[in-house]
C-alpha cells in the first residue's frame, strides 16, 4: 500500500468524523430532495415499464393454454374467478377508502405506495403524492384499518412516510375503553410499545388503542392497534410494559389517505 493511498484513507476517516461531529452539534445538512425526486421518477418509470412488459406475457400465456382445450377451459375459468375475486377485493378496498375519505374532515389526498424508502434502517415508504397535491411534512397517514404513519418529507410529486413501526415514530394515544392516555412508539419490528401506563391501570390483551389528538399531529380517534401482551408484574420501572400490534401491517399497505 503506497503512502499516498494510506494518507487518502486516513483523510477519509478524519473528514467523515469531522462532518458527523459537526452535524451532531449543529444539526443535519439539508437533504437531497432533488436526488430523491430523480430516483422516485426512475422507480415510477421502471414500474410502468415492467408492467407494460408483463401484460403481453400474460396474454401469450393464455394463448398457449388454448392448445390444450380442457386444460385451457379449466385454466380460463380459474383465471376468471381469480380476476373477479381480485376486482371484488379492489372494489371493497376502494369503497373503504371512499368511506374513509367521506368520514375525514381533514382529508388531503389519497396516494399509492410506489417503493420502500432508501434507508435500510428506517421503515419508510414512498408515496406518489407530494407538495403539488397538498401533502406536507408531519401530516398523518391512515388506511381504513387505522393509523399507518406520518409524512416526514415531501417534494413535488412524491413524499416519504415514516411507518408506525419505525423506532423514531411516536404518537399520543389512549385506550378506547378506559380512556387512559399514553405514548405509542415503534420498535423497528412488527410490534409497537405503549409507554407511560401506570401499574394501577388494568390493561388486558385485546384492548384497543386509538389516537388521543393531544400531540396536535394526529387527529383524535384513529384506531392504532390492540394490546398483544402486558407485563404488569412490576419487573422494573414505574410503568407497565405493553406491546401493541398495529391494525395496519406496513408490509401490506397499497393505498393510503393523508389527513391534516
Amino acid at each position, binding site marked *: 500500500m503506497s503512502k499516498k*493511498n494510506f494518507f487518502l*484513507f486516513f483523510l477519509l476517516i478524519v473528514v*467523515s468524523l469531522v462532518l*458527523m461531529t459537526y452535524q451532531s452539534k449543529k444539526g443535519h445538512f439539508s437533504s437531497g430532495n432533488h436526488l430523491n425526486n430523480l*430516483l422516485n421518477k426512475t422507480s415510477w418509470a421502471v414500474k410502468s415499464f415492467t408492467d407494460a412488459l408483463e401484460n403481453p406475457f400474460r396474454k401469450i400465456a393464455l394463448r398457449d393454454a388454448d392448445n390444450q382445450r380442457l386444460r385451457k377451459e379449466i385454466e380460463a375459468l380459474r383465471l376468471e374467478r381469480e380476476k373477479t375475486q381480485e376486482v371484488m377485493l379492489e372494489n371493497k378496498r376502494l369503497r373503504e377508502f371512499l368511506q374513509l375519505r367521506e368520514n375525514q374532515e381533514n382529508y388531503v389526498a389519497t396516494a399509492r405506495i410506489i417503493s420502500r424508502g432508501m434507508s*435500510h434502517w428506517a421503515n419508510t415508504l414512498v408515496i406518489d403524492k407530494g407538495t403539488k397535491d397538498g401533502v406536507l411534512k408531519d401530516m398523518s397517514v391512515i388506511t381504513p384499518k387505522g393509523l399507518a404513519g406520518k409524512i416526514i418529507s415531501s417534494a413535488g410529486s412524491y413524499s416519504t412516510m415514516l411507518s408506525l413501526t419505525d*423506532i423514531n415514530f411516536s404518537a399520543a394515544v389512549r385506550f378506547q375503553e378506559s380512556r387512559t392516555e399514553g405514548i405509542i412508539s415503534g420498535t423497528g*419490528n412488527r410490534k409497537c410499545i405503549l409507554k407511560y401506563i401506570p401499574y394501577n391501570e388494568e390493561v388486558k390483551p385485546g384492548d384497543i388503542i386509538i389516537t388521543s389528538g393531544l400531540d396536535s399531529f394526529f387527529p383524535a380517534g384513529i384506531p392504532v392497534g390492540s394490546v398483544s401482551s402486558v407485563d404488569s408484574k412490576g419487573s422494573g420501572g414505574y410503568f407497565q410494559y405493553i406491546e401493541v400490534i398495529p391494525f395496519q401491517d406496513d408490509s401490506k399497505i397499497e393505498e393510503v389517505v393523508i389527513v391534516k
Partner: protein
Amino acid sequence: MKYLLWAILIISSFVLQARLSILGVSPDLSILLVYYAGIKYGEKKGMLTGVLIGALEDSMSLSIFGPNLLSKGIIGFFSALFVTGSLFRWTPFLGMIAVLFLTFLDNSIVFLSLSLFDKAPAAISNALFISLMQSILNAPAGILIRPKDAD
C-alpha cells in the same frame, strides 16, 4: 462513456434495491458496485467510488451526512486490499467471504456512526438481523465479481 455507464449502474442499483425485498430486508447492491470498483481499479479508485456512492446515499437518507460516505469509502479501500492485495489470492470462495464480511462491516460502520453522532436507527438485535441478512443476500455475488487477473 465509462462514467455514463457507472452513473446508470449506480442509479439502477438504488432503484433495484428499493424494489427488492426478502423477509423485509433489501440487498445492498451499492456495496457490490464499490467492491467491484475496488478489485478492478485498486484501493484509491475503489475508495473514491465508495465515497461518491456513499455521499449519494447520505444525501438521500433522512439522517446525518457522513456514515455511508465513511463506510463505502472504507469498503472500496479494503476490497482492493482484501482480494487483490498481498494478503490473499482471489478464489470464488474468498470472493464470497469478502462480500459477506465487507457488507457486514459496511452495515456495522453505518450503525455505529448513526448511534454515535445521531440516533440509533434500530434496536441492536434488529440491526444484527438486517446486517446478517444483507450479508447473506450479497455474498453469492462475490463468486461472480472477480479481479482482472483471476483464473
